[in-house]
């Protein structure tokens, strides 16, 4: 029997930090380039990259530069008070001239064509919206950005956004009545069929926007979150049929499908291992998935067409997946 082993990985490179710019209180913008001057992979607005800081410290950051720059990638990083180490590492250890390992780009927050957009950003959540705004301008779409933060000094990119005049509403909490969260009902009270809503920011903002969009057309709201949600429920053991490889495995409690599959040498992609980055999304052919990720929308979860194999499990005894 001949076997053609297939290995699958994402683009990965050690990039040079060309600059570290302090863009606002506790926010730095890293500009990354290939040390040999090579072009970097093409991406589209909403894409993010992994910064592989150490073997155990991998974090996702949205790209805030222009996709038309083929030689540079830029990300904005907020020093988080409750940092698990990623943003602290970047603020304290990464400097101009450093090398940072980058993986990706990938995109679970794509800008879908629409005549009109409402962008709602909380704090560092504004970063993916900069290339989105560039594209909306280029195609002549109608758009509005409502951008909240603690104080004006804590909010990055204000000078870049000021060129767009009254398309941008800044809502620093210390200057604004009402605050951004107080405006959500007014902003989203009337569903529109010609508008897509994009939101990124702290969990409380995302939940408020999701609730306010409940009566909007399905698919109108796009959100991205890079923090996992707490998982309820115990792990059970279940069977997984690997359709492509023609094998069946049992996944015990405490082991993820991803690790069980990887152990067999089957090509599978993964990165965050907490259901946040979307890299391990796999097609489901049969079975009822116990979704534990934060990538899929409610309707995507209900359809059971795909799952994140790094965290999600099975509601019944058996899943058939296309791996």
């Amino acid at each position, binding site marked *: 029997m*001949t076997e*053609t*082993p*297939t*290995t*699958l*990985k*994402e*683009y990965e490179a050690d990039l040079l930090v060309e600059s570290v710019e302090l863009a606002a209180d506790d926010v730095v913008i890293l500009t990354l380039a290939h040390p040999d001057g090579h*072009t970097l*992979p*093409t*991406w*589209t607005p909403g*894409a993010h990259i992994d910064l592989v800081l150490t073997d155990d410290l991998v974090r996702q950051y949205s790209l805030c530069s*222009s*996709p*038309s720059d*083929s030689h540079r990638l830029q990300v904005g990083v907020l020093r988080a008070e409750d940092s698990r180490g990623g943003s602290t590492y970047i603020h304290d250890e990464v400097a101009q001239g450093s090398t940072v390992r980058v993986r*990706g*780009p*990938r*995109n679970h927050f*794509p*800008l*879908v*064509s*629409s005549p009109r957009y409402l962008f709602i950003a909380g704090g560092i959540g504004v970063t993916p919206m900069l290339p989105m705004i*560039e*594209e909306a301008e*280029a*195609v*002549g779409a109608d758009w509005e950005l409502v951008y909240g933060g603690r104080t004006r000094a804590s909010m990055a990119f204000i000078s870049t956004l000021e060129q767009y005049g009254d398309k941008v509403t800044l809502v620093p909490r210390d200057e604004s009545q009402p605050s951004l969260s107080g405006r959500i009902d007014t902003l989203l009270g009337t569903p529109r069929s010609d508008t897509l809503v994009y939101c990124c920011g702290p969990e409380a903002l995302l939940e408020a926007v999701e609730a306010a969009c409940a009566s909007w057309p399905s698919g109108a709201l796009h959100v991205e979150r890079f923090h996992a949600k707490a998982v309820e429920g115990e792990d059970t053991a279940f069977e997984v049929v690997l*359709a*492509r*490889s023609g094998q069946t495995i049992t996944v015990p409690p405490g082991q993820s499908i991803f690790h069980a599959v990887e152990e067999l040498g*089957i*090509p599978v*992609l993964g990165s965050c291992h907490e259901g946040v980055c979307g890299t391990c999304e796999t*097609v489901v*052919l049969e079975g009822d998935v116990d979704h534990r990720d934060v990538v899929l929308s409610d309707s995507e979860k209900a359809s059971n067409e795909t799952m994140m194999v790094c965290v999600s499990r099975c509601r019944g005894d058996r899943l*058939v997946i*296309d791996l």
Partner: protein
Amino acid sequence: MTQPFHGRVATPVVVPTDCWYAVTPSSAIGHELTALRVVGRPVVLFRTSGGEAVALEDRCAHRAYPLSAGTLDGDTIRCGLCGFVYDAGGQCVHVPTQSRVPLGAHVDAYPVRESDGLVWVWFGEPGRARLHRLPELPWLADPAWATVRGEQQVAASFLLLHENFADVTQVPFVAPEISPAVLGSVPPPLQVTVSETTVSLRREFPPARMPAWQSALVGLPDTEEFATVQEGYLLSPAVWVDYWDVQTTPEAWARLRFTQLVTPIDERSSRLLWAVSRDFAVADGSATEELTAMFGNYYARVLVAMETAQGVIDLDGPGREVNVSADVVGLKIREIVEALLVEEGA
């Protein structure tokens, strides 16, 4: 008792428009009207007196008649049926029967770029054209490389063509006499790399004989064995490139670049512009005729297989497909195209 079906139902092909497509070689466009059907649209191309390539909707705004059946007069086209005159921006500038041009008298003018000896045209949202990079194919215009080319229309979707180029295992089945000896034995590991918009593959073959045509050109005995590295790249839905590099000495390589420019005519037919470029025996002009015929024959055989596959789809639908691990490249191509269609709002 029938076995239950597994696998996924393939989705019908939709052609993405937000992509630069290589419509024709630059050398094919001059100061005359050329008609082509591209991405489901009739297109007329010409070069202005200043040398700039122009692509317009090949249909008069007034009545159903192709502008390509009209006359190129300076940098304007006069419709052969009604005499409406259009400038290089697609705007009607004169109608024979009144002094004022009516409202809406214009045809689409598609953004055009020329690069690497090719005319690239954008059929998507015009504002997005400048946000998408042209694929880079430097060997096509580089004097350090010699290129043989051809062009063929094929009754198969652009996706079938890409999946064939990406599936390296098809070559020994489709064209056994042209495939390198190296493909006949156990294939080496397939290394696949992905990013948001691209997929590439790499295989490193242990030493084996070169095909006779290549060893003759390189000037090495065809009984000696050399290691080969193969790489394949989806540069965009318009371009699949293969590298086949033979290591002739520890420091030197004999390199080949197969450029496959896939331009959809519609959902089930395409135009393939192919080029095979070599960086060895570049000055050997006598090889050109032989290689053009040989590779033309190879591509013709591949395209017949693709038309057979398209015939199955046309008759009985996309159907269910069972995948193997090595299909990861072709499946990623489909994901890339689907993501592009989502962004287009298709």
